[in-house]
């Protein structure tokens, strides 16, 4: 016992490195960084103001002046898409913020408290689950009225059951391990146990859930926008753009194609990033 024994575990490489080594991780991360930059730098890189009607002739095909053409009111598509990225990310982050914070809280409290509280919370959660996210979001918007803010909240709240269930399952897994009891024996109280022990160990799972949840939220928000129940015109929300482009498909297919592609790529990026995260956090390498 004199010399310091070797570090036994070779999996001590930091998370970032493990993530990048996955092909999905590298690609997803790159795409998202690009998206993020696009959103942040929108005022700088967008050639026109997104709501400027008559920036060009209406329904101009993609060309030199308007790289992605113009819509029926003469607004530049490229600019609208770029600003739309901002909206999309914003919606996604707020919605997931709501789902993540409330869902994790519910799941953790349910798992930790046990007994009646657990049953009450989780059964209620199951009931909400049965309503399906679409229905909850719709009901929300139906009641509060269509708007960007309401869509964000609706999508966020609708996803709470899923986040709560994931947090609950992860927390149960941790509670089965004795280290929490070790902390209790060491004098830890409820607050310390939940915030310092349980939460950090549940976070890796929740990060994966949140990443995949972002892709879901963006799709859901786009669906609401498509139905006209989300961001209202003239906001350049991709779902709404897709819906309004529908009427002009024969003359100007780009109005419908580009927003759809934008949504697809964004969701795709979050999905492969989420998958890569899941692989990186749960190394099943080396057999059993």
């Amino acid at each position, binding site marked *: 016992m004199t010399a310091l024994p070797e570090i036994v575990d070779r999996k001590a490489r930091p998370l970032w490195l493990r993530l990048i080594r996955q092909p999905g991780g590298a690609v997803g991360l790159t795409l998202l960084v690009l998206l993020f930059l696009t959103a942040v730098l929108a005022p700088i890189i967008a050639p026109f103001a997104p709501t400027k009607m008559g920036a060009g002739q209406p329904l101009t095909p993609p060309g030199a002046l308007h790289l992605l053409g113009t819509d029926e009111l003469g607004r530049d598509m490229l600019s609208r898409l770029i600003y739309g990225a901002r909206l999309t990310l914003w919606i996604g982050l707020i919605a997931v913020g709501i789902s993540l914070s409330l869902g994790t809280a519910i799941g953790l409290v349910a798992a930790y408290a046990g007994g009646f509280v657990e049953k009450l919370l989780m059964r209620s959660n199951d009931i909400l689950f*049965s309503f*399906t996210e*679409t229905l909850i979001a719709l009901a929300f918007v139906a*009641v509060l009225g269509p708007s960007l803010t309401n869509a964000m909240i609706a999508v966020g709240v609708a996803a709470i059951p899923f986040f709560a269930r994931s947090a609950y399952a992860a927390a149960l897994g941790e509670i089965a391990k004795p280290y929490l009891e070790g902390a209790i024996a060491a004098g830890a109280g409820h607050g310390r146990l939940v915030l310092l022990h349980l939460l950090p160990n549940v976070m890796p799972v929740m990060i994966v859930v949140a990443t995949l949840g972002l892709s879901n939220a963006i799709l859901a928000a786009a669906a609401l926008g498509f*139905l006209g129940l989300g961001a209202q015109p003239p906001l350049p929300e991709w779902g709404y753009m*897709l819906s309004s482009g529908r009427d002009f498909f*024969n003359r100007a297919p780009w109005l419908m194609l580009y927003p759809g592609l934008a949504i*697809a790529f964004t969701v795709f990026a979050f999905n492969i990033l989420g998958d890569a995260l899941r692989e990186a956090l749960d190394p099943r390498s080396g057999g059993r």
Partner: protein
Amino acid sequence: MFRFLLQRLVMGLMTILAATIAVTLLIHLVPGDPVRIMYAQSQGTTPEQLEEIRARLGLDQPIILQYVAFLGRLAEGDLGTTIRGQQPVLDLLLVRLPNTLLLAVTAMAVAAAIGIPAGFIAAYNRGTWIDSAVMMGAIAGISVPHFWLGLLLMFWFSVSLGWLPVAGTGPLSLILPALTLGLSNAAIMARMMRSGMIDVMGQDFVRTAHAKGLPRGIVLRRHVMLASLIPVVTMMGMQFAYLMGGAIVVENIFAWNGIGRLAIQAIFQRDYPIIQGFVLIFAATVVSVMFVLDVVYALLDPRIRRG
């Protein structure tokens, strides 16, 4: 087994009960005066008429009484009447419900027909290019917004090629909506099937089967497939709920005459009685189908069947 089913039944009933409560509260969560909002578009309504409507809907009563009255009416099959034509909500919904169910079930069949074999092939060839290809396809599938896919399919098959009708509710009109919903869901099913199968294939009893010298085919069919079937049933339950949700949007695109389409119209018209009825019927449908799947699950799994 019966204990399990009883538990699930009680949960289902409680869900429907919760739906009734939610539905009653719905109107009261509206910011502002719901009655005025509902009739905002019909110009000639006098304040007295609004009062009369308010009384008729029972909105001036305390909430508990409203709820009890609601339950009472529900027991008689009365879900109220619409704002516009004073038609009974229940009838409107029930006429359209079979269409939505048809759409959802057909879409599920499509999704299962594509997704389950795809997931199986991916899991069986785990780690090879086949696996990666299938999984890439699946991720692409879930990334494509289903409403976009629907529009693209419609424009291609209906408008350009003219093979299929654009809208309507006949058997030919079923194809595109079902395909739209089904393809999106197939991707999800493929992923879940794959991870479920990989789980099962890593189980000890599969190792035992190999150790017994059973040919690969038998191990696969008898051990892996059968054991995978059970989680598949659970998955189908979740997918059905998901499909019902997706149907709402797809019905809109293809003007498929189901309850989803009605609901969206109602939302725009602020026709709250329809919205309430819709929420209730939707929840009841989902719960019922999931219960049926619970029964199937209980029959399949000997651990539950024999307790």
